[in-house]
């Protein structure tokens, strides 16, 4: 279960960012922001190869003491960043991948909406509900 999910546009501004509300959300925003550097580094590292060889799932970007940050980038340079709790050791790579895939699917659906202008903040309720289902349930 993610603690924070963010969708970053190609120009590196956030299209959607959502955190578990109990914690200091600003901290997560900062983590996502710093992870963008790592994402760019990973993109450019493989950039010399053909684009189609580049994998969308970037894997673990960097770990912190109590959080791990995973990245995923689409072919249109839209980045998904997910912060998970480091103590959640049961979370495997496959699950992270599936979560990113769901994110990507939902993002695609948002894009398909003719009323959505690319570059706007994502305000789709369906997207929200999907992200909520992925977030840690903190009550």
């Amino acid at each position, binding site marked *: 279960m993610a603690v924070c999910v963010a969708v970053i546009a190609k120009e590196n501004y956030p299209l959607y960012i959502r955190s578990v509300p109990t914690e200091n959300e600003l901290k997560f925003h900062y983590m996502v922001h710093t992870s963008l550097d790592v994402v760019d580094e*990973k993109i450019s*590292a*493989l950039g010399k*190869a053909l684009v*189609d*060889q580049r*994998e*969308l*799932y970037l*894997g*673990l*970007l*960097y*770990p912190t003491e109590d959080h*791990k940050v995973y990245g*995923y980038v*689409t*072919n249109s340079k839209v980045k998904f960043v997910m912060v998970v709790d480091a103590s959640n050791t049961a979370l495997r*790579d*496959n699950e992270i*991948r*599936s979560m*990113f*895939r769901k994110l*990507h*699917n*939902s993002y*695609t*659906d948002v894009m*398909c*909406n*003719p*009323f*959505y202008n690319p570059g706007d903040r994502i*305000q*789709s*309720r*369906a997207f929200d*509900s*999907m992200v909520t289902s992925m977030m840690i349930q903190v009550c």
Partner: protein
Amino acid sequence: MEGLTLSDAEQKYYSDLFSYCDIESTKKVAANGRVLELFRAAQLPNDVVLQIMELCGATRLGYFGRSQFYIALKLVAVAQSGFPLRVESINTVKDLPLPRFVASKNEQESRHAASYSSDSENQGSYSGVIPPPPGRGQVKKGSVSHDGAQPRTPADQQEPASPVVSPQQSPPASPHTWRKHNRHPSGGNNDRPLAGPGPFWSPFGEAQSGSSAGETVWSGHSPPPPQENWVSFADTPPTSTLLAMHPASVQDQTTVRTVASATTANEIRRQSSSYDDPWKITDEQRQYYVNQFKTIQPDLNGFIPGSAAKEFFTKSKLPILELSHIWELSDFDKDGALTLDEFCAAFHLVVARKNGYDLPEKLPESLMPKLIDLEDAADVGDQPGEVGYSGSPAEAPPSKSPSMPSLNQTWPELNQSSEQWETFSERSSSSQTLTQFDSNIAPADPDTAIVHPVPIRMTPSKIHMQEMELKRTGSDHNNPTSPLLVKPPDLSEENKINSSVKFASGNTVDGYSSSDSFTSDPEQIGNNVNRQRSHSGTSPDNTAPPPPPPRPQPSHSRSSSLDMNRTFTVTTGQQQAGVVAHPPAVPPRPQPSQAPGPIVHRSVDADGLITHTSTSPQQIPEQPNFADFSQFEVFTASSVNEEQDDEAERHPEVLPVEKSSDPSNSLRGAKTESKIEEKTAASAPANVSKGTTPLAPPPKPVRRRLKSEDELRPEVDEHTQKTGVLAAVLASQPSIPRSVGKDKKAIQASIRRNKETNTVLARLNSELQQQLKDVLEERISLEVQLEQLRPFSHL
């Protein structure tokens, strides 16, 4: 605020109530809607409720903070006990019973029911005033609506008091009838546990401009929404009442019903649970929608593109956010276009929204596509999103198969391969296949790094296909993904498609496997090798560029030298028949004989540098064996050096030899023609050795000449050149004194062909060996880079 002392019971009770009202979990503010609903449930006169609100300070603050809420509750208790409402009464009145709400706070439904029952009392008095019930047969609707009028007044009065309440400010001109119908569901509908008419009413109350509008509406006046020219209701004012009432009531019922049924979750839920689907579209409405659809798209079975729909619905002047939500709900299959059903659903939602109804969170069942049947909505999945998802993947696979042929136009077995790739879902489920349409090398999921080199013969050879099938099934144990074969392709089919395209047998799902698939069947060893190789390849990390990259992609940089087209042309140019017959006879070391260069390359890669590198040195010494024309055994012995099974399979007979030589010839041709960058060195020696076997009889001098020719000809990029060489070789052959007789001539001819193949293969061998070394070095460097770039990958 006055100090408020609460007893323990009161404290608990109040906090529970506050939690109930705190639908947004803000822990600070109680939703005004809920609070109002609660107050109504307290069965207090409206003016008392208003007074309470003023006293507690909510009117001043505009919202119900916790303290205000508690005070209000206390005042409710005071009022219910009959004490005059005074600010000081909250503390002075001792032993105040807990404020009574019609139902316990945990049973909102019962509370609502109770509140409704109170409303229903008024129904009878108003039944006479109510216009004939709409077609839905909601007699109560009218009455309830009337009741709704009542709550509205306090709501209206409270409007200034609670501006914070989010009024869905539908255009104020929306027909009051709509609003009325909004109310009625709240009351008197015994079938529906109206859980939350309050929250619903309050927004309506706010939206309503005139408190007395409700009564006036009853007279049948239903001003059509003024600005909604595009709404049909303006067209039929007389019937609009009915129409408006009908859908409005229906929708209102729905919304209210859903609100009622929803406990603490969203306000609108379980719309389908209503006995009478309020979201159903009447026939008149549907006809109007259809007409509107026709104005955009004359073909009723066609689609309205998203842009056209956007323009159309933007005219309704609803906020873009809401239109976006309506689109999400109505675009069932998530294709960016609206079918007739989807369009009607969207239109219906827009109309509802225009008239003040909240948008549902999920598409009402009656609005789901296939709206024609009003009754069958129940079974339609009420999750458009999921359905859309499931639908799209289903559509995707078939669409992918046609794309496959485009990838390998020269591969005749595309049809077969496409069939086969569909059979196995491949673990692609774990890889990002969503957007990687062409990533044949798609970094295979490390977990799925089992490359099953399902050999595939690119030539349409039934025998070979059968062999491959057998091999594939037989090697299930080798291929952990075999169970996946029967899984339906899922969203990741793109990946699979690519990979499957690569191999007819399409065992491997991920990119790695695809590349290996081209190995021929007979090579069990090859398979094993491939598997091992794939494992090794994937072990470093899942993104390792397919070490045997050239394998699947003929266009890849590495394999560019071995252009599949060229290979095929070579193949086709050479002996078609021979090629066809070759598969069984001459499985090129790891690849099918006719497999064009790429296949050979692939197989080489699959086999691994491991095996081939080991064999390559052996191959070279074998070349001198070429000189031993007369000794088939020598060649077979030499060929034994190779691990490939095809060696053993080489028939000592001439014919098969010829055929084998032909493909090897073609292979050589292909290889020589293209830049050999892949590590097909192994295959080269294999081919060479293959060539040696059939070329047993070739005369020594001829061979030497060929060899020299080969050496002289570095890389022939022209197939014609190759043929020219071969022709020269052929021409040189007659000079060799050979046996007499037709048979021998035939043998000679075959020998010549074999020699040609030999030369080609020899050249290819050398080139591939060089390539192999280069690639190995490259691979090592890449792996090192990968390790450097992935410091955190091991967690």
